[in-house]
């Protein structure tokens, strides 16, 4: 039995877990350059650039993941890669936000902006009454 030390590696994104398992080492592209992580590394928190994450599972197997940026957290016995799911850049985010705002403005254009609590409640009450009526009808049968 080999006594090679291993670390727990988890690569997760907001949408799904990409990898989880023990590995001998991991190499990722941090903002200031590549970092290699071996077991018993000091706690580290780094921002990752878009690039590859290489996970050496054993002598013969290395898995490579391409991530579009993210975060690397290292504990002595575990490594977590918090991968971004999409291309993230400040101006890209800015553009997305602008789009969301534009869509909102479009809605605002088509109607008055004053929130009408009375009307809202009345509408909900009406819908609820309809549902209740349907329920009653159903119970009768």
């Amino acid at each position: 039995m080999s006594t090679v030390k291993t670390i727990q590696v988890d690569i997760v994104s907001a949408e799904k877990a990409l990898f989880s398992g023990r590995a001998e080492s991991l190499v990722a592209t941090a903002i200031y350059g590549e970092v290699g992580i071996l077991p018993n590394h000091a706690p580290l928190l780094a921002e990752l650039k878009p690039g590859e994450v290489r996970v050496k599972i054993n002598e013969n197997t290395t898995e490579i993941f391409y991530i579009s940026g993210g975060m690397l957290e290292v504990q002595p016995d575990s490594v977590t890669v918090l991968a971004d799911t999409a291309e993230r850049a400040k101006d890209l985010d800015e553009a997305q936000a602008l789009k969301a705002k534009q869509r909102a403005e479009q809605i605002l254009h088509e109607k008055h902006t004053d929130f009408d609590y009375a009307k809202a409640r009345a509408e909900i009450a009406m819908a609820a009454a309809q549902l209740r009526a349907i329920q009653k009808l159903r119970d009768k049968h």
Partner: protein
Amino acid sequence: MASTKEIRTKIKSIGNTRKITKAMEMVAASKMRRAQDRMLASQPYADRIRSVIGHLANARPEYEPIYMRVRPAYRVGYIIVSSDRGLCGGLNNNLFKATIESMLEWRNKNVEVDLCLIGQKAESFFKRVGGQIVGHVSHLGDSPQMNDLIGTVKVMLDAYSEGRIDRLFIVSNKFINTMTQEATVQQLLPFPPADEMVREYQWDYLYEPDPHYLLDLLSMRYVEAQVYQSVVENIASEQAARMVAMKAASDNAEDLIGELKLIYNKARQAAITQELSEIISGAAAV
């Protein structure tokens, strides 16, 4: 009494409706299962970030990120997660009801409310009743991408960090089980610092680049992850609600068909009886 032909047509049309509702029920059931999987898949990311933030906040007590600072509320923001489509029972209505109750509370304290809408149903509802809408996204489909949500979340995050809103809430349906979905209002910002971890010695990370920047970045990602989680959970809730509603509709169609068949048979029998008695009385007259 309606003619037998009329009743027959009606039975047929209800039968067709039942076929549709039955199909929708089955589609919703399978979509629900997939949405539940996605719900679970997005959990570890948020958990992990939360624990890192918790540690960072403990290790760096001198720096309190803006996302944790509690300030007096003059204006609050809501992210409302609704579905794109209807036919899912009272799901969206319960959601809007919870939203309005919560909004009213703030209004009674003279606090203004900004809205950020996700989903078509929220759009059409607030279009009708009004409201200060600052961001909107819809048509996310069954498997939403984080990419589609970034803009909407950023609008609110920016508003928060620039001090335009002082609280951020998210309203969405929590998936409890197939039969129960609960509309909940949850506070996103400022988020409470994690409980003090039990540690034997004080330790700290090495940072690349500096901790403040990382802490802010993590906080942002955390909020995004939570919104994403809510959206996915809302989809699971929507499918579950639709499944139940369509099952009820199919059952109702079944009942209706049963009743109509009874009426149909009675009408048919009446027609035969009438014909017979006409023949008999005709024969008697001869």
